[in-house]
């Protein structure tokens, strides 16, 4: 105890510690103030909690410690405690005459560094400086080790949870009596369970990164700037009760990881974009497509952006593409001035849809053969047009068609719900999108897709994954990936899983979109899209795979496995599965309407052109050829496509018109395509595109490699418009 006679006792504790004292009782306030000054601290007193909070907000740097009463008239001391903990991250010591154990416990669990029972004695105050030191020490330790969990953070209310299941986590998260995390209320759909891959994290705290939460995270990161986005500051900006720095740190890690993989994917897609562009140019040169130039150009951007720019947030890429053509993802096409547009737009949508539905992706990728077959069968449907769009990857188209039927039933719900959220990924925030999509997809996909043809999904995803993985930008690979998808569910599943979120997103969009379009009549389409999109955003793969295959892991682990994927894809039989899909051709037909739309867009292959060739349906053969890694098949496709172009124009218009009717809500990409052009067209187109890719790749030629930044910028633009 300090000598009351004023003898200058050597300070036993840090002199000048800046304390904010909050107590509504004037007597206590005066006494404590005096005591603290006797300890040689700098004291600021406040008799109201709100005033204290304002002071802290204004000058948080001016204080080292907060000493607060529990029972105050204007605000509960615990609430203040939470606020301070989250916003300012200052140590807080609670005081009260109430010494009931449960109240004391509450203080501790709310994150108080200490709980002092009144009346307060000098001795108690002498040691409060230790809390400051301890806290600072813990924080610096945390920064170094973002995954570790320390006691202080625990006090802040880490949501401990054992089970990672979204529903469970959601429940436990919600039950934490802290301030409600916005957006978490009763919206299971939005919640994403983030599995911390970081080994050091030890999964001590499970945070359900809902869409909103992730959005906050992203906003915070953006606000701070990537360079300065340290977990602590992010947490402060997020102002989410119950969130700990570690949670934020883990999340940040995950997001960064995703971003990285996305960038890798982007580079790959860049190549695809280039190829697409070239195809477009080729098409453009043709008279009948002249008119389409505009639309295509417009679409081009969209697709371009979307496909190639698989930004760190793959979904984003997709979103972009989708967005471009359409205001919202859902719109089938931005401005189907010509059918082309429709196609493109559709593809965007389709992509989305594909992704969303999960199933579609697979469908898209199923071997070309399938597509061909289906296309031929489905001729009557409006899918022609779409198929043409999808044509880029014939395999894609077909599988989708068949699958779509299946999905159709399930999708509707899915699509509607999932939609957009996944889809529109803002350009920058990978994690955000990922999370959202993941969440959504997981939720939706898992629930809704029970595709009978798991394969197709897988394949699509598979191929996407491959694409992603193979930054080698092997066009052949690309195609083969697509093709091979269908072959082995397992492999694709595996791959998908491995690819993780990013991969899914990258590859799937293109293909998925397409497939989703075509496959089913409205319902399917919608579903596909939404599911597709969802998948894209989140783990698109997972959703696709869910369709019957194997659930994808939304975790980001897959990122790491890209390499593996690669290997796997190679092994994929390829077209075997395609054949199987043939049966569905009729189904396909219906859906194909959408597909072409999507395909076109997705692969970013001259969609417009393809669209114009609605009558491609007849060409099924070409599709088959595409799939291997070689270029051979692609060549074939190309030819056909060209020939069909004329026909397609007409049909396209029609189909598009029909499509336009699709309900494109904000969130659901629905293309309600009426009968569309023959699917074969799509196949052809797809082949064409693939061919193109192969050519490019094979020759190592062009990859007019656009600097990644460029494409990304496009993406961003779109994204922004989109989002």
């Amino acid at each position, binding site marked *: 105890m300090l000598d009351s*006679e004023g003898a200058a006792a050597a300070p036993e504790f840090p002199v000048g510690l800046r304390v904010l004292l909050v107590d509504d*009782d004037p*007597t*206590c306030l*005066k*006494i404590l103030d005096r005591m603290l000054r006797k300890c040689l601290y700098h004291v600021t007193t406040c008799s109201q909690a709100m005033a204290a909070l304002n002071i802290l907000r204004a000058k948080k740097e001016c204080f080292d410690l907060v000493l607060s009463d529990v*029972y105050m008239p204007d605000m509960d001391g615990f609430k203040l405690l939470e606020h301070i903990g989250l916003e300012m991250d200052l140590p807080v010591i609670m005081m009260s*005459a109430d010494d009931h154990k449960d109240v004391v416990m509450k203080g501790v669990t709310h994150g108080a560094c200490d709980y002092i029972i*009144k009346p*307060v004695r000098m001795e108690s105050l002498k040691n409060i400086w230790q809390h400051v030191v301890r806290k600072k020490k813990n924080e610096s330790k945390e920064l170094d080790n973002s995954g570790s969990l320390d006691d202080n953070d625990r006090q802040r209310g880490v949501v401990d949870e054992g089970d990672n299941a979204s529903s469970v986590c959601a429940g436990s998260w919600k039950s934490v009596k802290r301030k409600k995390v916005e957006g978490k209320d009763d919206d299971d759909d939005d919640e994403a369970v983030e599995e911390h891959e970081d080994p050091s994290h030890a999964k001590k705290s499970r945070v359900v990164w809902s869409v909103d939460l992730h959005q906050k995270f992203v906003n915070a990161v953006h606000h701070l700037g990537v360079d300065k986005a340290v977990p602590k500051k992010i947490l402060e900006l997020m102002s989410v009760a119950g969130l700990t720095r570690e949670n934020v740190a883990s999340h940040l890690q995950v997001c960064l990881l995703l971003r990285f993989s996305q960038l890798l994917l982007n580079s790959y897609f860049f190549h695809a974009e280039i190829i697409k562009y070239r195809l477009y140019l080729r098409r453009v040169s043709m008279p009948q497509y002249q008119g389409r130039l505009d639309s295509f150009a417009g679409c081009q951007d969209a697709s371009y952006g979307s496909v190639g720019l698989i930004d760190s947030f793959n979904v984003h890429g997709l979103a972009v593409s989708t967005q471009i053509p359409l205001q919202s993802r859902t719109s089938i096409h931005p401005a189907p001035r010509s059918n082309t547009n429709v196609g493109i737009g559709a593809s965007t949508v389709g992509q989305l849809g594909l992704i969303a539905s999960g199933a579609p992706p697979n469908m898209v990728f199923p071997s070309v053969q399938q597509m061909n077959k289906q296309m031929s069968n489905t001729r009557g449907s409006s899918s022609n047009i779409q198929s043409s769009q999808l044509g880029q990857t014939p395999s894609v188209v077909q599988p989708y068609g068949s699958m779509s039927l299946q999905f159709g039933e399930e999708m509707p719900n899915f699509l509607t719900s999932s939609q957009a959220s996944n889809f529109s990924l803002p350009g920058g925030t990978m994690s955000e999108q990922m999370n959202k999509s993941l969440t959504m997809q997981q939720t939706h996909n898992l629930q809704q897709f029970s595709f009978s043809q798991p394969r197709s999904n897988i394949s699509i995803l598979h191929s996407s994954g491959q694409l992603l993985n193979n930054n080698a930008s092997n066009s052949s690979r690309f195609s083969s990936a697509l093709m091979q998808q269908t072959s082995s569910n397992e492999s694709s599943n595996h791959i998908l899983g491995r690819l993780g979120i990013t991969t899914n997103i990258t590859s799937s969009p293109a293909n998925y979109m397409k497939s989703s379009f075509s496959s089913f009549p409205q319902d399917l389409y919608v579903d596909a899209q939404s599911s597709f999109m969802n998948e894209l955003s989140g783990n698109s793969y997972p959703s696709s795979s869910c369709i019957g295959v194997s659930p994808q892991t939304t975790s980001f682990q897959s990122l790491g496995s890209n390499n593996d994927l690669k290997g796997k894809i190679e092994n994929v039989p390829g077209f075997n599965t395609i054949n199987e899909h043939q049966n569905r051709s009729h189904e396909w037909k219906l859906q194909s309407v959408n597909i072409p739309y999507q395909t076109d867009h997705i692969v970013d292959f001259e969609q417009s052109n393809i669209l114009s060739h609605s009558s491609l349906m007849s060409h099924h053969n070409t599709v088959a050829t595409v799939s291997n890694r070689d270029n051979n098949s692609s060549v074939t496709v190309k030819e056909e496509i060209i020939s069909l172009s004329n026909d397609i124009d007409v049909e396209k218009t029609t189909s598009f018109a029909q499509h336009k009717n699709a309900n494109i809500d904000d969130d659901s990409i629905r293309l309600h395509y009426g009968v569309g052009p023959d699917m074969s067209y799509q196949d052809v187109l797809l082949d064409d595109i693939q061919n193109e890719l192969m050519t490019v790749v094979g020759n190592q030629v062009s990859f007019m490699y656009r600097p990644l930044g460029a494409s990304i910028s496009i993406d961003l633009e779109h994204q922004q418009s989109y989002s």
Partner: protein
Amino acid sequence: MEYSTLYNQIAMMKKSFFDQGFLDEQFYQIEDLQDDASPNFVEEVVTLFFRDSSRLITNIDQALGKLPQDFGRLDSLMHQLKGSASSIGAAKLKNECTVFRDFCHKENIEGCLRQFQKVKKEHASLRQKLENYFQLLRQVGPVEKANRSGK
């Protein structure tokens, strides 16, 4: 001499406060805070206390008069009074407040009313005692500070 008598008086008075349980250890803590920088700290704090506590008691009175009684509010008010009392070391007053709160928790309005009378009585009694005490202190003046050290 007078001073020593005064001092003795003061000392004895204070001792009786403690012996009879009107004051407790916390009062010493308050005294310790008094020094050259705050020569009248104790008196200031006690004065502040009685001013604030009187306000509280008035509020409780009003709350008790309102029907139906809001026991939650009564409890909350009394909690404040209790906290204040404990901060200056007014032990007996604090105990009376605790009893009142017990009645509140049981929603025993009769008990509350009776107890409240005791609270008021104790409050008035303590006030008087401490006023006398400070009066004596003022008589001895600053010199007395030296004698008041230590506990």
